[in-house]
């Protein structure tokens, strides 16, 4: 072929035509491949791509239901919803995150803290294309600026949502609880459908317990969006169902008074309506502003809250477990009477200390002195209560069989959570020989009974439990379950009532009255000279306008060694004694029962009793004034 070196136009032309024909055939074959590909895409796989195209443009967006409102017993709003706008980024659609954030920073304030928190939120598990908040709580002005500049940014959105707001801030933090941002653990636990639009979930208190009812039912909208996630049209909508509004037993005026009575001190107050068990006030101090958990706080703020030695996030009223100290004595006294270890007339000699036969260990009274000149003298049960004689109860405890003592005490609900709807309430601890063997590997010594006689040892109670004990004493043995819920628009699924509690078995009506009398003497017996007055009289009994029955208690935090005196001044703040006071009033027709705990406060009568008095005054004085005319004495609760 290559032999001819001379140009041959005709041969060249025919060769060209041959080549052109071959190439055209190849071209047709290649176009055939294209046609095949389009038939594959548009005919055989049409359904797949049709669906994919619809999934592209149609998005199902969950609509979060507005959370149910929470009111107090007088209709005062304790938890509401507010509109809050946030600046969100859909990171999948943002080209350069750093640059976008920097440019946004020129329009609205974006602090380094905001960016740190944003990065934290980015790391959390989330749904694809889910917006991540860069700034929360935008001002009106910032919203306007962002709206004007919106076209400059892809993947940047301003979204408005209802967020929880607690108008009283810190005041009800431990009573009502709070919601927190849904986190990864929550996503594991919560129903993904119901919570698909929800950013906050009840984490504490009432907000947690009634989460199901408060949350409501999620709604949906089908929207057509473009590739930048902007909504072009609404195709279909199913509205969410708002959560239930609920009213609580809480009385905000009493709550304010209780919080003020405790002042700056650490501690807890729980006040109940003894007739219903309704929780009128529940204070734990120090507290915190639950709104910070919703609008966001800096990591330093959070560290300050979570690492403080004063544990403001800890709910002392419900989860604080302390030895009840002498507030436990009325229960022990009744146990002794019921099991005939003592009777109301029997007396002992209190020299300020108690020893078991044949043992040298000395169990001291609070009036004990180094030269053994203390003691309350001749003491019967009545006097043992109002003078809070330790020696009487040491003696009483040793006279009883352990199982009888524990069996009677257990009826009051020690070691159990009797509350209907208090989330995560601690049960406390009622030790017994089985527990001690299992937990400490030791047998039950007589010393354990002696300690229990004055509410020390391993026995632990919460302020909520002690308020319930006060209510039981006020009710002369009728147990009530503490409860938060007063009413709701519709029955709540959570409010499945637990079985009613049986009455305390054993004490006669007279026994109850005598015990109440002794507790009244704690407050009202005065002007009787040296060691003749009720322990609390000097502090609260001189000018009281109603009959209050109470019992003080002082719980040891550290053990005082044999032969040493307790010297408050020398002890470190956290080793000082806890001050307790339980009370109810009016004694004959109780409207309120409460417990006061002042952590490391010192003496129950001197520190906790005045707090209790202040709370009771706030609750009763207005009622007694208005009802002064119709007040009938001697009326008994059912």
């Amino acid at each position: 072929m290559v032999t001819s070196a001379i140009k041959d136009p005709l041969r060249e032309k025919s060769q060209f035509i041959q080549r052109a024909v071959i190439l055209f055939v190849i071209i047709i074959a290649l176009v055939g491949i294209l046609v095949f590909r389009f038939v594959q895409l548009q005919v055989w796989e049409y359904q797949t791509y049709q669906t994919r195209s619809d999934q592209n443009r149609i998005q199902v967006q969950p609509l979060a239901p507005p959370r149910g409102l929470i009111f107090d017993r007088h209709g005062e709003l304790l938890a509401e919803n507010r509109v809050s706008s946030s600046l969100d980024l859909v990171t999948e659609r943002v080209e350069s995150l750093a640059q976008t954030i920097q440019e946004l920073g020129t329009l609205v304030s974006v602090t380094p803290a905001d960016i740190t928190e944003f990065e934290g939120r980015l790391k959390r598990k989330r749904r694809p294309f889910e917006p991540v908040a860069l700034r929360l709580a935008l001002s009106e002005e910032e919203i306007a600026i962002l709206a004007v500049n919106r076209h400059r940014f892809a993947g940047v959105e301003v979204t408005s949502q209802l967020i929880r707001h607690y108008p009283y801030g810190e005041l009800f933090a431990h009573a009502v609880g709070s919601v927190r941002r849904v986190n990864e653990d929550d996503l594991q636990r919560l129903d993904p459908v119901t919570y698909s639009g929800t950013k906050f979930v009840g984490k504490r208190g009432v907000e947690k317990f009634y989460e199901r009812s408060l949350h409501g039912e999620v709604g949906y909208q089908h929207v057509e969006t473009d590739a930048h996630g902007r909504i072009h049209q609404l195709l279909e909508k199913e509205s969410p169902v708002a959560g239930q509004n609920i009213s609580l037993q809480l009385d905000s005026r009493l709550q304010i008074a209780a919080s003020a009575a405790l002042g700056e001190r650490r501690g807890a107050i729980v006040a109940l309506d003894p007739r219903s068990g309704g929780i009128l006030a529940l204070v734990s101090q120090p507290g915190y502003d639950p709104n910070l958990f919703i609008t966001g706080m800096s990591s330093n703020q959070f560290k300050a809250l979570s690492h403080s030695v004063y544990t403001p996030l800890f709910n002392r009223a419900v989860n604080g477990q302390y030895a009840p100290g002498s507030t436990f004595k009325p229960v022990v006294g009744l146990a002794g009477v019921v099991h005939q270890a003592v009777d109301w007339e029997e007396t002992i000699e209190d020299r300020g200390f108690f020893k078991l036969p044949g043992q040298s260990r000395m169990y001291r009274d609070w009036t004990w002195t180094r030269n053994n000149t203390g003691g309350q003298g001749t003491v019967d049960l009545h006097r043992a209560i109002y003078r809070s004689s330790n020696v009487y109860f040491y003696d009483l405890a040793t006279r009883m069989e352990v199982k009888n003592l524990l069996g009677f005490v257990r009826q009051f609900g020690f070691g159990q959570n009797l509350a209907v709807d208090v989330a995560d309430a601690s049960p406390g601890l009622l030790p017994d020989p089985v527990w001690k063997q299992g937990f400490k590997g030791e047998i039950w010594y007589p010393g354990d009974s002696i300690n229990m006689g004055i509410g020390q040892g391993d026995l632990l109670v919460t302020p909520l439990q002690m308020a319930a004990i006060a209510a039981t004493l006020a009710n002369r043995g009728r147990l009530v379950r503490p409860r938060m819920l007063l009413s709701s628009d519709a029955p709540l699924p959570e409010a499945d009532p637990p079985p009613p509690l049986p009455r305390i078995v054993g004490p006669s009506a007279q026994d109850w009255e005598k015990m109440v009398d002794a507790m009244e003497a704690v407050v009202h017996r005065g002007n009787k000279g040296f060691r003749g007055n009720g322990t609390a009289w000097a502090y609260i009994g001189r000018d009281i306008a109603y009959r209050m029955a109470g019992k003080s208690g002082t719980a040891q935090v550290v053990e005082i060694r044999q032969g040493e005196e307790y010297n408050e001044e020398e002890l470190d703040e956290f080793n000082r004694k806890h001050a307790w006071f339980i009370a109810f009033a009016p004694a004959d027709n109780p409207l309120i029962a409460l417990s006061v705990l002042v952590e490391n406060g010192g003496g129950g009568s001197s520190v906790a009793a005045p707090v209790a008095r202040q709370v009771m005054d706030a609750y009763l004085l207005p009622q007694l004034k208005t009802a002064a005319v119709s007040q009938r004495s001697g009326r008994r609760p059912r």
Partner: protein
Amino acid sequence: MSRDFVRSLPTHERVLRSGGLYRIHIDPWLFLLVMTVVACGLVVLYSAVDQSAVLFRAQIIRLGLAFAALVIAAQLPPQFYVRWAPYIYVLGVGLLVLVLITGVSVKGSRRWLDVAGITRFQPSEFMKIAVPMAVAWYFHDRPLPPSFKDVCVALAIVLIPAGLIVAQPDLGTGILVAGAGLAVVVLAGLPWRWLGYAFLALAAAAPGLWYTLQDYQRQRILTLFDPESDPLGAGWNIIQSTTAIGSGGITGKGLLQGTQSHLDFLPEARTDFIIAVIGEELGLLGVLVLLTLYLLIIARGLYLAAGAESTFGRLLSGALVLTFFVYLFVNIAMVSGLLPVVGVPLPLVSYGGTSALTLMAGFGIIMAIRTHKAW
């Protein structure tokens, strides 16, 4: 037989040759077909630019200029092209070198030359015509089929500018320029065996070539095999374009009704990916109509080339037609997910002026070769 074919033109051909359009060196059939594709393209483009009057008018002006280029190119006698081919080629290579030195960088590629600060000009585009013209010039007075030496020279003529263009980097245009030049070599009678060897050599060199590619180019090739591996990054384009095409079905969603294109899921909808808009809005039928029109243009172009009476004319015309095919094949195969994504527009349809201008000028040259006496 071929001699007879040349000498006995069909009756209608003779009629047309004597007709009015031939007097102004326009082939009516090719002209009509090109006009039809442009008109159909404008209809789709109207949808693809979201009915923007500004963009639409700009495109009509560009197409007007492109038509002017066609008419002017058709008026120049083929002798002119033969005479100037080597100079045009040398000028073009010079400009490509200049681009690499002083060119304007857009999105990481140096493709543009600033002309006195007034307008920008892409020399690589110009080479789509200059390169096949230079190869045709080289072969036009040499015996064919070409000797081994001639093939090597021709390859050098092709690969120097193609290499310069790939270095910009602009792989798409480089492929088209190389394709145009190689088409001349094939049409000149390159033994098929040699073509087979070249393929084998290329296949053997493929692993080595892989390392010369830019990262983004490698990513595009990988994405072709598994677009879902990076659905929001490199795979996004191909997922969205196949979704657009597939969801069009047989009859399409209707003009202006494409959700993929109008809701911005489809990237580059008005430029390189416009075939996906056609597929989505006009369905398989629309695509088949377009492919048929393209095939008719190619058939007519090859027919005109075969009828040319000079080697130069045949080779150049044929190469320009083949380049046109490579253009459309690479584009459509890329958008439908058969080839990696390279920046090649859909000929005569995509938004933009430069490619339309060269294509139209190319058709003008084909017409010139056929309509001027003695060529």
